[in-house]
């Protein structure tokens, strides 16, 4: 800092004390946060990456030690990994697409006037308050033909040949957790998009109306361009978040049947939790991290190219 170098003649320690306070004081307030994050997140993160180059299995503690790239070689040859990768794509983009579409619709609806709008808003946002484990259980039950109505309805409209539990069907199982995820995530998109919508100056719409624009034209010419930057960043963050989100699948299907719902993050968890094979679990996690990193870089590059802000 230049402030220390151009001291006036006769400068003493007292001279710098106000600066000292201004420079150091913020760190006093931030220290607990920094310490905790460093100890509980960053340090384990580094340890976790190092695990991917070791054999760490709590069931076979005798075989510890550095393993070079052998975990990665195993990963490359692991059919389950590639299947999980494919499932991750279906899970993530299936969830994001419907969450976004329904969320945008809800936000547009909430941005209009109608009687009971406040109550309606509180009610439709309610799924967001339901703990994720409960969301998973509720939807697992809804898909259960014994106590849930969904299989019966699906059979009645001819989508299923008979009322059975789709969570047990390798072809369809992944759509169970995806449905639960859509239910849980629509409020989030609606809230963020609503906030963005409300920041659009209403004079713009009035001006457009005076100029004779139809509602559809206002939407495509004003609303969407205004929302675009917000949409890009929210969708990107949400995609990453959902790709990491293992709770719903783990509780509803635990990755089964026959790994048909195993995504990378649940694969990490089951490998660590059930097999206690921390080395391999960390390897999968590092792969997931790498993929997310590439994805984020790609989205940011595309955004820079197409959204002129």
């Amino acid at each position, binding site marked *: 800092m*230049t*402030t220390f170098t*151009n001291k*006036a003649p006769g400068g003493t320690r*007292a*001279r710098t*004390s*106000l*600066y000292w306070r*201004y420079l150091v004081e913020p760190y006093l307030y931030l220290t607990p946060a920094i310490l905790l994050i460093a100890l509980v997140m960053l340090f384990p993160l580094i340890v976790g990456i190092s695990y991917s180059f070791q054999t760490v299995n709590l069931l076979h503690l005798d075989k510890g030690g550095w393993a070079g790239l052998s975990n990665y070689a195993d990963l490359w040859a692991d059919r389950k990994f590639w299947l999980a990768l494919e499932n991750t794509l279906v899970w993530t983009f299936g969830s994001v697409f419907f969450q976004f579409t329904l969320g945008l619709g809800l936000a547009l609806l909430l941005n209009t006037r109608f009687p009971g709008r406040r109550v309606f808003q509180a009610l439709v946002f309610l799924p967001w308050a339901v703990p994720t484990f409960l969301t998973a259980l509720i939807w697992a039950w809804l898909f259960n033909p014994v106590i849930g109505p969904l299989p019966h309805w699906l059979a009645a409209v001819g989508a299923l040949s008979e009322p059975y539990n789709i969570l047990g069907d390798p072809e369809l199982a992944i759509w169970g957790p995806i449905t639960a995820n859509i239910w849980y995530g629509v409020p989030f998109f609606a809230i963020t998009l609503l906030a963005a919508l409300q920041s659009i100056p209403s004079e713009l719409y009035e001006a457009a109306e005076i100029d004779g624009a139809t509602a559809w034209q206002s939407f495509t010419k004003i609303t969407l361009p205004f929302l675009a930057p917000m949409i890009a960043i929210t969708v990107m963050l949400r995609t990453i978040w959902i790709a990491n989100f293992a709770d719903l699948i783990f509780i509803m299907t635990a990755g089964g049947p026959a790994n048909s719902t195993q995504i990378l993050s649940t694969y990490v968890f089951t490998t660590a939790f059930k097999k206690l094979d921390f080395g391999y679990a960390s390897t999968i996690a590092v792969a997931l991290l790498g993929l997310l990193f590439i994805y984020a870089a790609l989205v940011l590059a595309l955004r820079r190219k197409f959204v002129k802000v």
Partner: protein
Amino acid sequence: MARLELRDIGKSYGTMEVLRDINLSVADGEFIVLVGPSGCGKSTLLRMIAGLEPITHGELLIDGRRMNDAAPRDRDIAMVFQSYALYPHMDVARNMGFSMEIRGARAEERRSKVAAAAKTLGLDVLTERLPKALSGGQRQRVAMGRAIVRDPQAFLFDEPLSNLDAALRVEMRLEIARLHHRLGATMVYVTHDQVEALTLADRIVVMNGGIVQQVGTPLELYDTPANRFVAQFIGSPTMNVLPASREGGDVRLSNGALISLEGLEGPVAELGIRPEHLDLADPDNATFTGSADVVEHLGSDTNIYAQIDGIGPLMVRQHGHVALRAGDRLGIVVQPERVHAFDATGARINS
């Protein structure tokens, strides 16, 4: 009460210098007004005196003691903010007594002082209200009351009246003048409004771009502005400035007119003439001839915006009514002893 002394004060944010070489001493009980266009560093200077902003360079002395590193509460200075900064969760009485509360004064002492201050400011019936239930003028009074209750060594005001409407502004301006008279306290007052500056100040500090342009009494600034900036900033309507050049001991204007000035030093670039120092005259033996563009009849005065042949626009103010209409021909003469000459850098060069 307190003397303030600023020696070579400077301020930088990172590499951006916003104040430079500020030297000023404020006598005990003096009313000093800092004026200048917005962004020139007035608030920053005031906040450095208050201790809210560290001083990058130079020294601040209060009653001869170096105070650069003292915390605001150790300087015994009160400040009135432009936004008033009333505590929204405290009623008027608690707002006003908060400083005593912090210093641990006894409750009844606090109450009597607050009551006294509230009475002088006409706030006695409002002491139990929250700030959000007050009008702008009342809030302003509470902010002043908060400062008075403390009985500080010096008062700082940062554009305290700029959020009020015109009528209230005049009223509160008088109130502040009375307050200064009654308390005899040292006051430093920031404004960008020259009327406030001229009416309140013992001395005015004119600032521009982080540099002090001139320090002086209101009349000194009006009569002998140090440079073109001060000349145009002080006085209303704004001073006319005309391009000019020196010819021997005289000054030649672009319409050919010759004006003789006393005590000229160096080459002349411009002449400054206040609108009230121009007089209407017979066009045949006038310094300027031209036609009236717009004429404003204000009752007490008449403002004439004229187009002068060979020069361009010029403004004239005449006392009382003048029977002149837009389009009329007119002639104008100058009072030479009240003309200001500036060189190419804008500095004043006549005595």
